């Protein structure tokens, strides 16, 4: 919360500080509706043309358990959810004790005086403001309310503290609770205004966001799972099948709910294998279909995935990664499924792997994945993760009229069809789907057995060799079209940080911070993980050190999954790993500390960074 100007008015009147960003952490239990407050704040930021990023944790249990929601709002660019909070709102003793450490020294802790006994020692380091939130919320709404409405009361407090736009918040509250019982909206607004009217200005100064440059145009606000789901709809996907597993489930729930409006269906299957089989069946029938899961479910889908590679049937598979192996950490983040996405399933089974870097990317990558699958008749993986799935961001509203596409199958009669024609350019044979008449009277069988050009099973040595090469060649053709990623920062220097997926924000913020301190450091984010873009070696050659920052294990040899692929590809020993497996997103300071340590262990002075 960097102050730009302090307007202290004379005579002890409330002080207002102007800020350009703030990190607010709300800590309570999962049933307190904390995520609702966070959602309101995020959406408000989106409507106010501000940047916003959120971070949340939820307990893996069904009900209850500590939960937090952190929201970072800024008038300028927001790259991560923030290392440290400016304000902590603590609803319980455990929320207070567990999260005071995440607060910036000198930061403000707003606590529910009904539930929290402040620690005198901490009062030196943090500004404590106790408000009997539970009591006041009940007083405002009425006796039967119990703990309900406490979250909205707290939202009112935050709105007053940061001088947020009240009419916009009222509208958001009415939209959120509208459609239900009239009294619910009324009660929510009463609770909000009670919190807003609390004379917090007496206890501490309040803040006001400076006007940002304005992003121009409308923004939409959603999380990564929603962006993926809507991306598929825009891409023309009208069929999907899945099985519930955290954190993938939101995507399937969204598609189940939304697809019928478009004449499509999403089917809940008996298991993961049935869901990929049903999706690939629908894809075979004409229109690219989607399935998805998280780690354990992806393992189960591997065999059918190999069939799609062999039979050359398009498919999109989403993997919302979580901590593994096995059931692992269902509600924590990890990037440890790159290897299974790239190499999982038996045999030589080349496929496409894409990873979105932020929520907006989730929307566009869904469309890109569908189009690659259609063009090359291959399965395409989208590697999302728990952090991006649940975090809310605002981004410029897509031009849907331009973007939305129709991918209905063409059933026009063809004279003849050779499904696995070896002479086809780049090995890509446009599909002829069932329901199409083939005038020659020769019809194809889509098969998982090695086959000849007509699709007849064969184990002829030359044919297997030719078909393996054909399946490889298709992706080499794709590779030639993959754009070379742009370096963030100067193209030459001492250190290059390489990342993929949801870590783009904290890595870039680390670069910004280190460069501001005079260090020579840049970063590179790889979205197309398989096949890799050409030209990465040229980029690497501009730096003395290449550190691949990943949320996965450093393995036996000291580098993670992407680093392993890059080393195998480029034989470059300068490529090393910066890894962690604590199930949490990267903090900027963690990345910077790891870089320092790597450089010093390399025999160099830390300050050369």
């Amino acid at each position, binding site marked *: 919360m960097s102050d730009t100007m302090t307007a202290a008015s004379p005579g002890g009147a409330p002080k207002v500080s102007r800020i350009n960003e703030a990190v607010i952490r709300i800590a309570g239990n999962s049933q307190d509706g904390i995520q609702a407050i966070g959602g309101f704040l995020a959406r408000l930021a989106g409507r106010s043309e501000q940047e916003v990023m959120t971070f949340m944790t939820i307990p893996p249990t069904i009900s209850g358990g500590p939960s937090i929601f952190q929201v970072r709002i800024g008038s300028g660019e927001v790259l991560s959810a923030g290392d440290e909070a400016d304000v902590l709102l603590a609803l319980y003793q455990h929320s207070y004790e567990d999260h005071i450490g995440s607060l910036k020294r000198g930061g403000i802790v707003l606590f529910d005086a009904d539930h929290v006994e402040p620690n005198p020692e901490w009062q030196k380091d943090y500004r404590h403001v106790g408000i009997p939130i539970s009591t006041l919320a009940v007083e405002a709404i009425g006796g039967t309310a119990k703990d309900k409405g406490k979250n909205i009361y707290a939202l009112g407090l935050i709105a007053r503290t940061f001088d947020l736009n009240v009419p916009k918040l009222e509208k958001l509250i009415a939209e959120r609770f509208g459609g239900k019982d009239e009294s619910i909206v009324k009660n929510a607004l009463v609770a909000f205004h009670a919190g807003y009217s609390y004379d917090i200005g007496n206890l501490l100064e309040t803040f006001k966001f400076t006007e940002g440059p304005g992003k121009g145009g409308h923004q*939409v606000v959603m999380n990564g799972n929603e962006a993926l789901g809507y991306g598929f709809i*825009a891409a023309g996907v009208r069929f999907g099948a899945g099985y519930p597993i955290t954190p993938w489930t939101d995507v399937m729930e969204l598609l189940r709910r939304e697809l019928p409006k478009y004449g499509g*269906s999403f089917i809940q299957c008996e298991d993961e294998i049935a869901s990929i089989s049903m999706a690939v069946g629908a894809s075979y029938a004409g229109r690219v279909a989607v399935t998805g899961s998280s780690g354990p479910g992806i393992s189960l889908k591997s065999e059918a995935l190999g069939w799609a590679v062999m039979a050359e049937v398009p498919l999109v598979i989403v993997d919302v990664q979580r901590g593994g192996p096995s059931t692992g950490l269902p509600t924590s983040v990890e990037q440890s499924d790159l290897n299974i996405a790239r190499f999982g399933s038996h045999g030589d089974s080349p496929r496409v792997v894409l990873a979105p870097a932020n929520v907006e990317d989730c929307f566009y990558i869904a469309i890109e994945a569908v189009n690659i699958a259609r063009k090359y008749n291959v399965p395409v993986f989208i590697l999302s993760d728990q952090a991006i799935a649940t975090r809310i961001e605002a981004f410029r509203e897509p031009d849907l009229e331009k973007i*939305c596409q129709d991918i209905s199958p063409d059933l026009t009669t063809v004279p003849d069809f050779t499904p696995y024609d070896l002479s086809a350019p780049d090995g890509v044979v446009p599909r002829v789907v*069932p329901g199409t*008449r083939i005038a020659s009277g020769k019809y194809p069988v*889509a098969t998982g057995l090695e086959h000849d050009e007509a699709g007849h099973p064969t184990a002829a040595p030359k044919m297997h060799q030719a078909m393996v090469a054909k399946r490889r060649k298709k992706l080499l053709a794709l590779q030639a079209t993959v754009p070379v990623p742009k370096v963030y920062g100067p193209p030459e220097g001492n250190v290059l940080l390489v990342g993929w997926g949801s870590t783009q924000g904290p890595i870039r913020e680390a670069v910004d911070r280190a460069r501001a301190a005079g260090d020579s450091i840049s970063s590179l984010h790889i979205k197309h993980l398989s096949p890799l873009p050409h030209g990465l070696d040229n980029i690497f050659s501009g730096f003395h050190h290449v550190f691949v920052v990943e949320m996965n294990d450093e393995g036996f040899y000291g580098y993670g999954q992407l680093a392993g692929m890059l080393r195998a590809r480029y034989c470059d020993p300068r490529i090393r790993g910066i890894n962690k497996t604590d199930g949490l997103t990267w903090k900027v300071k963690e990345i910077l500390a790891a870089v320092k340590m790597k450089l010093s262990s390399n025999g160099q002075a830390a300050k050369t960074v």
Partner: protein
Amino acid sequence: MSEMIAESPVRVDVPAMAPVPGSERKGLTKKELAADHPTWCPGCGDFSVLALYFKLIEKRKLTHEQFVSIAGIGCSSRFPYFVQAHGVHFIHGRALPFASGISLSRPDLHVFAFGGDGDAYSIGGNHFSHTARKNVKLTYVVMDNWVYGLTKKQTSPTSPLGFKSKTDPWGAVDYPINPMKQAIAAGATFVARTTSTNPNHVLAMMEAAMDHDGFSFIECLSECVEFYEGAFDAANPRKGGMFKEIPKDHDATDETAAYQLAGTDFPGYFGIFYNINKPTKNAKEAEINRGMMEKVKGLKDWQILQKTFDRLK
């Protein structure tokens, strides 16, 4: 047929599938329908099922592009290679979910799935139950030979107790599955039993199954002459056995009666054990879609999505 298309959960711009009744067009001949020469051993019961499938297509005057044949893995699952039409040779045990994906997205196609006892009742057992309970519109023909043939004589889920195989050299010890009971208990809406040695009966069952609006299941005894010779002699009059049709007074809508028939000792009965009409998965999804599409009537797809995005601002 136009009715079926109206109920489709997915909009597919395709011509109606069925031939006009009374049209002069002849059905496809065996010559037009035969593709690769079957890889089955001489004398295998599956030849008869294939020949009768050709007969069915010919008799019902389906054209090549109006149907698909889907199979998993096993001797009988080689079926689609031998049929001159769009076909799929999928992975072991998963033919039904694959076929369901076609059925639910392409209501203009007749979907036939084929498999053996290992594919259907062992590795694919879960899908058998769930496809039955969901009542997905498709026809499933299982060629049951009581043994694993492609891998050369291991115990199958329908091998009787005491059957000597390479995995049970002293005789099978696991109690066999009763496919008829399983299908009925799982909620299949059409359950029939036949044997490849009675061609007219096989064809009659296939026709009835094809006409059934829902999940139609045919258990077809199909002898493996190589690894279980004579398994079904007791059901074959030419081998001194008895082919007993279901009693005339059997009520095929009576689940308990069907279950009782299914419990008869081998060779048991042949015919339609159970046949009821229940809304299909296809129809239910179509109904959901009609309701949802009514609310966004007149809007283009991008406009529907725009309405959603307007709420996310």
